[in-house]
């Protein structure tokens, strides 16, 4: 079904369900926020971080008395209702249906990943419930031209420029001469691959090796042999945690290393470090956030997470900020009414969040920078943007 057809079907079903659609407002005793979260399935690891961040945000706002609603003339406490989306698009839709129709939530916070959030945004649009999103690429969500959802995240274009920005700051003799690009054979991988190629051209680099890799493969020895033959001295790798761990393990087994290894998608998670131990040192990784950010509450949030899980996180701040934006928008709108919240977010700025100031454009999108950190002794050390950590090139495996 085309996008136009899908939207037409949604419009029709909205008309048919007419009387059942409730325009919520915050005139009751509490504000009920629903959130589909991946508590089970392949994205459960990320989902747990998201759940934690949302719960922290709700606990913090309630500790401050709740959200000020002028219409009610008082602060209203927030109640969070989470529904497991089982990491699938179909279940995101049914989770939101359940939150809206059964749990009677007033407004929604997003799950994460592009396909899941697109599915969620479509259902939220149908029920006229505002859906505040983070962790989805704008090129996946923006073409839908949604009225009742807004998004903040980084864009592959600027995200792909991060390694080149880092290299520009290195002394000339330490900059890679023969970088390699390895992107997974998936729509995201292809999208990022194109962005890396454009960024390389912009910064004057040529890839000595540029090849996609099959997702879920168990053997990358042939690719490593090719990388060796190409004499690669840096690798930009877009792939899942399992594939990237398998690749790095095989690189060590076959005695091949590069001074600069920068991963996207698969290298920021705690499981990446757990699976590699000391071998994760020197690996650079992407992320959406850092506890080293100078913004109000960032450091404290990072410390809280670390105290509870004995590891750091490069995502919880983005999810926490997602809730912060929604709380502030409800307060500005004085209501949870989707149209009022739309007006409170689109073309508006939110200065006080743990990801820094967010400026939403006329489409409801706000750009955040892609983060680059380097794994060191089990922790993410912030390099970009404005990190204080000094980049360490990786020595050969037998010299570590």
């Amino acid at each position: 079904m085309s996008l136009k057809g899908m939207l037409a079907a949604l419009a029709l079903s909205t008309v048919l369900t007419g009387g059942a659609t409730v325009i919520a407002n915050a005139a009751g005793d509490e504000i009920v926020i629903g959130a589909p979260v991946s508590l089970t399935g392949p994205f459960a690891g990320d989902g747990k971080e998201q759940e934690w961040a949302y719960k922290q945000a709700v606990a913090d706002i309630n500790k401050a008395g709740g959200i000020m609603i002028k219409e009610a003339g008082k602060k209203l406490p927030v109640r969070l209702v989470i529904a497991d989306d089982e990491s699938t698009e179909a279940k995101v839709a049914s989770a939101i249906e359940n939150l809206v129709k059964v749990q009677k939530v007033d407004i929604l916070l997003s799950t994460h990943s592009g396909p899941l959030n697109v599915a969620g945004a479509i259902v939220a649009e149908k029920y006229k419930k505002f859906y505040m999103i983070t962790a989805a690429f704008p090129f996946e969500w923006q073409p839908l031209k949604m009225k009742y959802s807004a998004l903040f995240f980084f864009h592959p274009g600027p995200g792909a420029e991060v390694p080149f920005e880092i290299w520009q700051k290195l002394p000339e003799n330490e900059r890679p001469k023969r970088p390699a690009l390895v992107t997974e054979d998936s729509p995201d991988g292809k999208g990022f691959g194109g962005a890396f190629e454009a960024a390389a051209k912009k910064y004057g680099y040529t890839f000595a090796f540029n090849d996609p890799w099959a997702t879920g493969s168990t053997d990358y020895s042939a690719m490593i042999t090719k990388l060796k033959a190409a004499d690669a001295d840096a690798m930009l790798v877009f792939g899942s945690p399992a594939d990237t761990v398998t690749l790095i393990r095989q690189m060590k087994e076959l005695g091949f290393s590069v001074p600069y290894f920068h991963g996207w998608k698969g290298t920021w998670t705690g499981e990446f470090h757990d699976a590699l131990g000391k071998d994760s040192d020197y690996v650079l990784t992407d992320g959406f956030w850092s506890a080293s950010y100078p913004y109000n509450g960032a450091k404290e949030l990072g410390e809280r997470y670390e105290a509870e899980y004995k590891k750091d996180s490069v995502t919880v701040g983005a999810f926490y900020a997602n809730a912060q934006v929604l709380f502030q928008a409800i307060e500005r709108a004085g209501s949870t009414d989707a149209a009022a919240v739309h007006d409170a977010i689109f073309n508006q700025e939110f200065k006080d969040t743990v990801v820094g100031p967010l400026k939403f454009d006329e489409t409801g999108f706000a750009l955040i920078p892609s983060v680059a950190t380097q794994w060191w002794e089990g922790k993410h050390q912030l390099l970009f943007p404005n990190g204080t950590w000094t980049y360490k090139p990786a020595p050969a495996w037998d010299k570590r």
Partner: protein
Amino acid sequence: MTLPSPEILLQLSINGALGGAMYGVAAVGLSLIFGTMRLIFLAQGAMIILAAYLVRALFQHLGIDPFLSLLIMVPVGLVAGWLIYQGLFRKAAAEEDRNISLLIAVGVMFLVQNLMTVIWGGNTAAVVTTYTASGIELLGVRASFTRSMGFLIALAGTALVVLFLRKTLVGKAVRAASEDMTAATLMGISPHKVNAIAFAIGIALAGAAGVAVATTFPFNPFAGFIFSLKALVALALGGIGNVTGALAGGIILGLIEAYTQFFISGGWTNAIAYGVFLAVLMFKPEGLFSRPYKKA
């Protein structure tokens, strides 16, 4: 395009064969089960991953070395396979319609995947030992220690199965049943007994493969499906129902993947592997190592 050096070709061949043996050991289990039950046991990959999780649990909680846990995983697999057959497949196996057994296999796969997710979560898991990511010199080139061990496990597992099928009375009964169940039944062989034995050995091999997987790759509850698919390709290459052919099919698949990755592109690996799978089914459906089917 210039031909790569002999060292590179040897490197590709050794690593491709070591990787392919993993598919091979999964395919041997599939082959045995298919031989007697005419069932593609799609849950084999999920059983391998379940075994990998158990190996990890034995290592983390009891300190049992993953390779030593073979002594536990194989007997546990035998018992589990026997019980799975008796509990889930016995009744369906008696039916003419094989779709019921296939649906049960699919149900087992989803059940095992979701149970693993509930118990261990959906995150990528891994076993980290002192020999994780170690390399060794093999025929003058670098190779993975754990993959070499996996290769030995695959060889030993297949050899034991072949010996069992050729040298024991029960094994001969399994072979007879896999060739002609009706004739075997008329000779007094119990179809349920041979099916249960085939299932038990098949799941025991999944246990052994789980050790190889746990020591080599990170895994998650859903990683087994790819294993089932690749084992199916290996099975078709080697000849469905042919145990040694299944192992050889796995090794050939590993070599195809390695050469494709090197000479063409990593992105083509799966496309070419599945293309070869279809080509074999179309032009040599009995597999590369079996005699052609007799025409009626």
